[in-house]
């Protein structure tokens, strides 16, 4: 790396902590942190949520997905300062009152669409976002939606089935 980018890096590095007010799973939270902190670390460490997982930090695997106003995005590259007034939802925020599973959670459970379960968060969040956008996705559309997600254990067919079951089509 050249000196200029190194200098930039260190300058960024010294950014002061700033206080933000964000909404996560329907609750307003105060967070004091470096504005550039990816939401993944805010959710996991500041808010002790387990749903979003670190997989790559590069928006390549989907393990860290959260919903921003209902849209599934990788939290690992989404800086805290970009959240603004948006509603953030994590896996934990999906279950309904009384611990009743969200239909997508229920469907993944029924299809036993997990082995190690590390990808489960991302797959469920992506599927929830898809079904919100389109209640009757075709198998092709489901596959396209989940293309951003990595599963190393090979539960692909089960996950696709779990989402297909919920499609009106």
């Amino acid at each position, binding site marked *: 790396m050249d000196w200029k980018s190194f200098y930039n890096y260190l300058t960024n*590095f010294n950014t002061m902590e700033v206080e933000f007010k964000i909404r996560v799973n329907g609750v307003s939270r105060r967070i004091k942190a470096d504005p550039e902190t990816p939401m993944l670390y805010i959710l996991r460490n500041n808010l002790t949520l387990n749903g979003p997982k670190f997989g790559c930090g590069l928006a390549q695997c989907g393990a860290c997905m959260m919903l921003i106003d209902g849209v599934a995005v990788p939290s690992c590259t989404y800086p805290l300062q970009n959240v603004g007034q948006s509603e953030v939802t994590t896996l934990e925020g999906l279950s309904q009152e009384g611990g009743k599973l969200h239909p997508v959670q229920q469907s993944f459970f029924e299809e*036993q669409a997990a082995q190690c*379960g590390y990808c489960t968060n991302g797959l469920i969040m992506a599927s929830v976002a898809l079904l919100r956008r389109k209640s009757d996705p075709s198998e092709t559309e489901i596959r396209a939606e989940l293309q951003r997600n990595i599963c*190393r254990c*090979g539960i692909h067919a089960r996950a696709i089935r779990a989402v297909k079951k919920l499609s009106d089509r």
Partner: protein
Amino acid sequence: MGKNQQSRRAFIQSLGVLALGFSMSGTGCSRFKKEQADPSAPKIRTRELDMEEIDSWLVIREDGRVTIMTGKMELGQGITTAIAQVAAEELHMNMSLIDVHLAETGYTPDEGYTAGSRSIETSAMSVRRAAASAREYLLEMASQELSIPKIALTIEDGQIGGQGKSTTIYTLLNGKYFETKISSDAPLYANAERKIVGQSVARMDINSMVTGKSHFIHDLRFPAMVHARIVRPPAQAAKLTSVDTQAISKLPGLAKFIRVGSLVAVIAEDEYQAIKLAKAVSYFLAWDYQKALPANRSLMQYIRSLPADSKMDKKSEAWSDHTIANSPVRHRAAYFKPYIMHAANGPSCGIARYADGRLWVWTHSQGVYPLRGALADLVGLAEEHIHVKGVPGSGCYGHNGADDVAAEAALLAMEFPGRHVRLQWMREEENAWEPYGTAMVLEVEAGLDSQGRITGWKYDLWSDDHGVRPGGDADNLMPAWYIEKGHGKAKSGFRGGAIRNSEPYYSIPQLHLQSHIFRGPLRRSSLRGLGAYANVFAIESFMDELADKVSIDPIDFRIRHLNDERAIACLKQLAKQIKSIKKQNQQGIGIGFARYKNQAAYCAVAAHVRVDQQTNKVEVIKLWAAVDAGEVINPDGLKNQIEGGMVQSISWGLMEEVNFDDTQVTNLNWDSYPILRFQEAPAIHIDVIDHPHEVPLGAGEAAQGPATAALVNAVYQATGIRVRQLPVIKALQHSALRVKPLA
């Protein structure tokens, strides 16, 4: 209060403390909340572990629940559930009353590694016998206590009763240990009733996964836990030559900069801060490193040229050097399998705490006891002062970075005593530093008689060794190479891994099998199936080539060379599955078969592919499997394993290959190391052939070899191109201009 009662109480309490590692994040046992302040307080198991004793496998708790102690780890393969099933069956207990305690030193039996598809064959079967023995013992006690003949008693969910009287299993034991050996002749309900075993019960842990409850090591949080990141050298062979400590000390938020020899790390209160610091620190280090890797050469030729330790693995008595030469049909071929990554979805993670001369380590290692031995060697503590607790990680499929990251966390915790130190690798570290599945070259030569029967088979394999696991030796832990305390490079691993499934399961009158073990350029260890993956790929490709030469249907050709009825049954079932499939233009169906390790599960796989003639794009339309794993504990669990194994194998075979330049591995993320994703995922159908009265056979790795063999055989059927060098996509691109597709 009797002595036993005392010790019993001590044991249960310590179990509760054990659970605390988790209770911070929700799944602990509330009775012990008050001890949360020091979750890793020393704990002593009050009764010696003895694998022959019921007490080592099973604990009856005051609340009426039963805890099963297993020395195995949950890797996503569902062993927790399978173990709970066998225990529930024998104890006549609802599964919801059973907890499974995963591998932990000093608490669970030492069952070595969770590897080789052996957890059902070993751990689950031990638990089954322990639970059956416990039940008989408790019925015996109840019979005396209640003065009712044992035959008139029934046991259900921890209640024992008959003739209007009843008691509970906890009351009977009255806080005592069983202090009884496991009896081999306790009757098995699994044989008589079989209500829970053999059923596709839901996995016990999926609820946590779909709701985001604490499950993974990554989810553990301890009070005042700090975060660490390692600053990696530019190459594996590297030495730190200078450090600008002054500049480093000025970096904000640095709790500690740690340097042990050439191992460099940062510790921070905040995880993201640690990540930024690690990057910043990298600017202030100078390294001396070697450009030692054989870049830009054919790896296949390179590993054939390396010095090798050669051994004859099998030579039939009838072997004659002339048999093949004198056969009317002769054929030979060489196959290549590149280095492949475990590439777990979640990078490796370890947590450690050092205080008062004791070390606690949380790990997703596949072997807590061997890791403890290696840690003792690494950090210079006695084994009894090290406590290693297994916690599930992201599916690892073998020996990945789990042990290394635990060892690094341990080294850092010793430099930063009193606090829990959490270290998680970044994606590029996982990809660049894990031990890979080694590259292999496989050469086969065979002759056929005029009836199309194989006369002689000569097989030579070149492989690095596999299974370079911790095994009590610090040299096998990657950080040991950098701390400059006299630890060498990893020693030899497991030769048996290379020759796994190198002997064909077919009856062939003359065999000549040799292995040549080299020391390759990259770090390697055990990856799902070990050598069986490449050996079965080669054998099953070659079987297809032979069948083609004599124009015999590939399934028939295999059946003609099989003596084992169960193997034949799998192939016949597979034939039935694919019989009515219509192949269209540019499509092909191929098959592969193996019995894993030639003694575990049987697995026959078919693949239906389409290869676009213009683009050479390979689409795997569907996979079928017929599997015989003996007694099946959980049919859906077994299917899930085979399904996952096939998908992973197809991914390996189609597109995976570790690349490197002269300094380091270059595929550091999912763009440069692509794996199969959802748009490429095939449809899957699996038939399980259940044999409830046979012994269960390990199946977790059974599909790896057959699936890739089926893939390349299908590609041949579709295109006429015989891929002998994996990965398939790359091979097709190379051969695209040379070979004409079949009409």
